Structure formats: C-alpha cells, structure tokens
C-alpha cells in the first residue's frame, strides 16, 4: 500500500476534475463521488499506515518516486512522495477528518445549487493537502502549499456573489502569497546552499551548513509558515476566511491547512536544529500569536470568528512547541492532531447550530440550545473540555506537554514562553467557556422566527465520531508515549530536560488557571443574563473585537500606500515614461517645423546660402590644408 500512496492524491484530484467537468448531469449524485474519493484516499492512507506499523521504526520512511519532475541540468527534482511517520500522521488526519466533513457537507450543503462544485473544491483541497504533506522535496511541497491556498481561496469565496466574501477570499490568498515569498526565498537559499531541494539531500547536509545560512532559511520558512498558519503578523486573513461554508472552516481553517505551517517547521527540523535564533523567533511568534488569538477570542460575538481566533491561538501553541526544538516537535504535532479533532468537531457543532438558527452566527442571539440540540451540545461539550485541557480529554495530553516544554530552557526564555503558554491556557478556558455557555446555556435569546432543531444524522454522526476522538484520542496516543515514539524517526529523540518549575506545579497552575477562566466565564455568560446587543465594552474589548485593529493597520501601512503607489505609477507611466517618448516625438516634429521656416521660398536666399556654403567649404579646404 505504501507504494500506492500516490493514489491518495490521484483519486481526489481525479474526482475533483471529474466533478468540475461533469456538468449539471452530475448534480444529483456528484457529492457522493466526492465522499467516495475522500474515503478511498483514507483507505489508501490507512493501508499505508498499517504497512508502516509492521516495519521497524528505523525503516519507516519510504520514498516513492513517480516521475522526473524537473530534469534540469543543475536543479533536478523528482515528483516523489515521502512516506514517513510524520507524513502518514497528516495523511490520516486529513483523510479521516476530511471524509467526515465530506459526509457532513452532504447534508450541510444540501440546498446549495452548486453543491457539486463544492465537493470538487473539497476534493481538490484533499489532494493538494496530501501532496503538501507527502512531498519529498520543498518544491513539491510548495506545489501542494499553493494548491491548498487555491482550494482555500475557492472555498472561502464559494459564495462570492457577496462582495465581502469575495474580498475575504482574495485577502486569504494574497496574505498566503506573502508567506509564499518566504518559501520561494527559502528554496532559493536551500538551492544555493545545498544544490538540491530534496528533503533527503538537504537534511543530510544541513548539519554541516553554517548557522547563518540555516538561520536565514529558517526565518524564510517561518515567513511561509506564518502566512499559511495565520501567525503574527500575517494572521489577519483567518477571521475573514470564516466567510466560507462552515465545513470548510472546519476542514481547512481549523484542522488541516492552517496547520501546514507547523508541518513545514517540524519537517524542516534538521534546519532549525542548527539555527537556535530562528527557533527562538518561531517560539516567540507562536507565543505572541497564542496570546493575541486568545485575547481576540475573548471578545468575539460571532461564533465562527471566535473559533477562528481560538484556532489561531492553538496554532500559536503548536508554533511555540515547534520553536522549542526536538523537545517540542512531537508535541506540536500531537497537539495538531488532537486540535484537528476537537476543533473540527466544534466547527461542525457550530455549523449545526447555524443550520438550526437560520445561519445566524451572533452568539448573543443563541442561548439555551442545550435542550433542543442535545447531540450537538454533547459533542461540542467534549470538544470544549478537550480544548480546555481538562484531563483526561485529548487536549490535556497535548497542550499540557507544550506548556511543560515551554518552561524548559535557560535565561528569560522559559519564563516568558512558559508564562505565555500558561496564561494562554487560562484565557483559552475563559473564551471557550464563554462561547460554550453563550451558545448552549443561559436564557434563549433567539429571534422570533427561530425554530432550532437537531440536525440530521448525516451531520451528527461525523460530529459524534470527532467527539469521540476529542475525548479519547489524546489518552490513547499519549499512553506510553506511543505517538512521540512513533514520530521520533522524524523529529529526533529529545533528551529529557527539567523545566524551571517542577512538572506537578505546572500542571497544578494550569488547571487552576483553567478553572478560574471557566468560572469567570460561567459567572458572566452562564449564570448572568447576556445582553442581546453587545455592550460598548472597555478599551481591551474593543481592541480585541477589532482584531487589534489589524485590518486598519494593514490598510494604513500597506493597502493605502500601495494604492497610492500604483496610482502614482500609472500616472507616472503615462506622463513620464510614455510622456518622455511622446514628448521627444513632439520635439522632432517641432524641429521639423522650425527647419521648415528656413525654407523661405526665396530663391535668392537659397543662392546666398549656397554661396556662403561654398565659401565655408573652400575655407575649410584652404585653411585646413586638405
């Protein structure tokens, strides 16, 4: 099955092409083609996983070379897939969660006329994402990297007949592309330093490369990761990306695509291992983002935007972990997997709620949904417990490890990074509880025409499966450090380090903060009445509601000057560059006009001119002695 792993990419890709080209004939059944394709990819992945588990830990990396992608004289890249524990983890996550979301979407998108197109895009996304994680070279990874960007663009803009949705799609793609510059430059650096883009070649040579080179590459890769994973300072697109249908938010903007940045950094571990400065920057960016996202999440009333902020924050955790080096890599991926489950589950829950509430997203209009949507309440609740890090649910096993790892180190770093992670946990508890209570508890604040009801089985079953994952996957994988050992061939073995504070204290502090956050949220949003209209709020609330004015900043710093620049350039091109050409043409015309005046038409003047000319020539000949 491992050698057939290319089928996991090919099948969804073919299905996407088929669905796009099939036309209206396939409208009735096309979505099932999409589901089957995604399931097939999962089966291929599962087969490969089983085969891999049957092998020794040392031999678990397989490279499948398909064809010569770029047979250049200097740069030669093959279209090869690298199947190792890290990539198979992603394959499983993507295909499993993806298939569930496909199923969910069959019901969720039931009334959309363009459902077939939606599934085509979803399949395209699956294919691209699998290519991203299976690629055996940076170039091929970039291929998938851009592919998921495209799928994300298409899906965010799925309802792009609304102007703001189209804008959101554009924003996502463009911000992602800013990150792509980083990846392109990183590839340039890698090619310059190692002469190849293959992971195998590059990682084999990485330890010998200079720290400066590795730092440069690391920072460039970080830029790419920031774009794709919505990390500071390229986080602004994620909130707007919620314009897409909710299954998209669940799949792409929570579980898989946005975590590609983390994948990139973990995949590039050999490079980061040689560049401590780059690692530190990664960790700091992660820390900043996790606080930023949590802070924003505390103020958002839009359920999807709150979840998006939470995603940002959680990916911040992962980045922080990835920036810690070998001790963090495995936990970053671990958290990524558990987060994939519980966040996808919660997004699907949010979708279920929206479905019931006529696509309302304002949580101030929710409340008391526990009674009417029991399954959603339970599944969402399990996700909530998981993200809070309440033992024994999944999140506890992954997040707590990250917090512990963040406290490892020397100097100021453990205190700052660990502190951020710790505070973040409390904030997470607050905003997630706020979301949970505002939606499911308290008094019903529905508008009059709302008739909330539980969603159909096609939607609830995936939610239930994900909820089970949210509840027990962490425990299962953490038992005996199964998962970290599984990843060890890729992430490297981490020596045990003691955190600056002892582990039980950290656990205790974390749980205490989580408890405080939850209780605070209960006091304000569970027990007390939530006003339907958002109160004016403090400066902090306003700041968070407006995403730290990131859009205003971007507008003021990039968009406005950019528009002015283009406008000026358009003007300058017409007046200066083209103007210079036209002006000199006009100059020649004027010269012609002027010399025309010399032609007076007076024969005697011409004669005089001739005579003077003769004299001048004669003088030149005589005086010049020619």
């Amino acid at each position, binding site marked *: 099955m491992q050698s057939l792993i290319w089928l996991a990419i090919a099948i969804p890709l073919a299905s996407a092409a088929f669905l796009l080209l099939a036309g209206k004939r396939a409208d009735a059944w096309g979505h099932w083609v999409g589901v089957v394709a995604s399931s097939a990819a999962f089966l291929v992945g599962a087969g490969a996983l089983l085969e891999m588990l049957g092998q020794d830990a040392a031999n678990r990396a397989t490279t499948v070379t398909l064809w010569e992608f770029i047979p250049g004289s200097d740069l030669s890249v093959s279209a090869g897939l690298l199947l190792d524990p890290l990539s198979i983890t992603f394959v499983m996550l993507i295909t499993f969660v993806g298939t569930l979301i496909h199923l969910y979407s069959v019901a969720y998108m039931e009334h959309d006329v363009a459902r077939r197109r939606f599934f085509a895009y979803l399949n395209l996304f699956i294919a691209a994402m699998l290519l991203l994680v299976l690629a055996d070279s940076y170039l091929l990874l970039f291929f998938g990297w851009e592919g998921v960007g495209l799928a994300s663009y298409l899906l965010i803009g799925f309802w792009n007949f609304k102007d703001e949705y189209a804008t959101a799609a554009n924003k996502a793609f463009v911000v992602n592309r800013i990150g792509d510059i980083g990846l392109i430059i990183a590839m340039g650096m890698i090619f310059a330093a190692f002469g190849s883009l293959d992971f195998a070649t590059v990682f084999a040579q990485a330890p010998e490369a200079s720290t400066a080179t590795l730092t440069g590459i690391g920072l460039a890769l970080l830029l790419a990761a920031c774009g794709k994973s919505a990390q500071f300072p390229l986080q602004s697109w994620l909130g707007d990306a919620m314009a897409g249908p909710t299954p998209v938010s669940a799949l792409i903007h929570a579980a898989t695509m946005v975590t590609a940045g983390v994948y990139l950094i973990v995949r590039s571990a050999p490079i980061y291992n040689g560049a401590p400065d780059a690692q530190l920057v990664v960790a700091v960016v992660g820390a900043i983002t996790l606080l930023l996202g949590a802070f924003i999440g505390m103020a958002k009333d839009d359920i999807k935007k709150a979840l998006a902020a939470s995603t940002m924050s959680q990916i911040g955790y992962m980045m922080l972990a990835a920036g810690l080096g070998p001790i963090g890599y495995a936990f970053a991926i671990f958290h990524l997997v558990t987060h994939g489950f519980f966040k996808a589950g919660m997004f699907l829950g949010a979708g279920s709620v929206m479905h019931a509430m006529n696509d309302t997203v304002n949580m101030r209009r929710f409340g008391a949904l526990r009674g009417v949507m029991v399954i959603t309440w339970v599944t969402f609740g399990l996700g909530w417990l998981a993200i809070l890090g309440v033992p024994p649910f999944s999140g506890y096993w992954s997040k707590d490890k990250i917090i512990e790892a963040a406290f490892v180190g020397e100097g100021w770093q453990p205190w700052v990074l660990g502190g951020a992670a710790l505070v973040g946990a409390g904030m997470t508890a607050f905003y997630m509880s706020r979301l949970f209570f505002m939606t499911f508890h308290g008094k019903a604040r529905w508008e009059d025409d709302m008739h909330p009801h539980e969603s159909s089985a096609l939607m609830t079953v995936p939610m239930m499966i994900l909820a089970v994952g949210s509840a027990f996957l962490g425990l299962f994988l953490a038992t005996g450090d199964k998962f970290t050992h599984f990843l060890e061939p890729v992430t490297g073995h981490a020596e045990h380090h003691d955190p600056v504070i002892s582990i039980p204290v950290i656990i205790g502090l974390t749980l205490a903060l989580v408890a405080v956050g939850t209780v605070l949220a209960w006091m304000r949003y569970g027990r007390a009445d939530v006003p339907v209209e958002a109160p004016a709020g403090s400066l902090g609330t306003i700041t968070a509601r407006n995403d730290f004015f990131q859009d205003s900043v971007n507008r003021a710093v990039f968009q406005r000057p950019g528009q002015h620049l283009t406008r000026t350039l358009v003007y300058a091109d017409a007046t200066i560059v083209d103007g210079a050409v036209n002006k000199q043409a006009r100059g020649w015309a004027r010269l012609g006009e002027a010399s025309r005046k010399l032609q007076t038409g007076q024969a005697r003047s011409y004669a005089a001119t001739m*005579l003077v000319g003769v004299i001048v020539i*004669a003088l030149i000949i005589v005086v010049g002695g020619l």
Partner: protein
Amino acid sequence: MVNEVLFWTVALLTVIPSLALIFAKRPVHIAMSIVLVMVGLAAAYVGMGAPFLGMVQIVVYTGAVMMMFLFVLMLVGVDNAEDLRETIKGQKWIAFAAAGGLAILLIAVIGDATIEPRTGDVVGNPEEIAMVLFSEYVLVMEVLGFLLITAAVGALVLTHVPRLTPRRTQVELQAARVAAGADPVNKPMPGVYARHNALDVPALDPEGNPIEDSVSRVLEVRHQTQDGAEFRAQLEDTDNPDHEARPHGAPSRDSDTRNTREGEEPK
C-alpha cells in the same frame, strides 16, 4: 603679347561695365554693358594666344547670347526700370559680404599659388584647336552636340504654349451668336422703299416704323443719320390723309437716344 596696356585696358573694360550688373537700373543698359565686358574678354583671349576663342567669344556671346537676352528683355517689357531697394532682410549685406569674401578668398588663394609658367608660345588658332578637339576630345564634342540639340528642343518645349481649349469652328461661333440673341436674318438695307435710297435713312418695317439698325453704325456715331419719321410722314401725307391727326414727332424719338445701342454709352 601680355603687356600692361592690354591688361589694364581689358581690366577697365570689364570691371567697370560689369559693375552695372549691380548698380544699373535698366536691364537694357546692363545687357549693353555686358556686351562691352564680353568684347573686353575677347580682347584678353586674343592677347593670351587664343585668337580662335576670342572670335568665338565675340560671335557667341556678343552676337548670340547677349542678343538673345535683349530679345527676351523686349518680350517681357524693356521699359521697366527696376527698384533697387532690397526686399529680403539682410540680403544686401550677406550678398556684399559673401561676394567680397569670395573675392578675398580667391585672391588670397591665387596669390598663394606658385605656378611655374612654361616657356613656349602656343597659339590657339583654328587648326590647332581643331586638331585637339577632333582627336582627343572628339567624344566630348559629340556629347556637346547632343547637349545643344537637347537645349534647343528644351527651349521649344518650354516656350510652346499648348492650346488649352479645342478650336471653335464657325458653326459653333454662329450658334453661340444666335444663342446670345443676335438677329438670325440679314439686316434690312437702309432707305425707305424705292422712294429713297439714301444710306443715312433707316428702313421702315411693314408697319412703317423705322428700323434703326439698318443704318450704318458709322453714320450713327457721326450723327449723320436722318429720322425715318419724316419720310413716313411724307408717305402718309400722300396716301392716307387720315393720319394727319397724329401729332408730329410722337413716334419719333430723340435722335441721341435712338442712336444709342443697347448697353453702349453714347459717345
């Protein structure tokens, strides 16, 4: 043969008349001055051992070329004295400066030149010239012949005035005249019936009115015609006494007015 007398004679004979080119007003005077110059030059040629050329100079230039100039002058109007005021701004100064500069330049160059005259005296008499002309330069001669013929034909072409409209025949002229309102028949002879055949008396038409045109125009101009009315009255007196009641002179008009043809002022 080259002596000072000859040189100075020639110099005065050429330079002074040639100045007429610049200062004289009447083209005829200028042409005559140039004739003088040509004769002076001919003298110089003869003096410098080119008697044939001197003769040719006189024949061609004074005899042919300058005469042709005079003919043309007569064709375009001899008597127009030219206004010597300059119309083009600065042309006068440019002209004098350029001519003066040219003269100075040429004289300077000539003065600078070193020429070693060869001894021996070659006389360009007709035989000598012919020997060279029809041996060494025979081809040039032929070409010159072509040139002269071409020039003659060219002059004809240039001065020939093509007929711009087709020639009008008598028939067309006649038709045009009738169309303009001319009387198609012959004019009646002057005189009143057979009674009177005087040329100065207009004929009378059948109603007895005088036909003014029948009298020669020359007589009208001279006011030597007679009024036909008188004779008519005489006729009436003899044949039809009833007409006597008609007041005398009523049909007759003032002779001046009568004699005036349409569109013509009385002289």
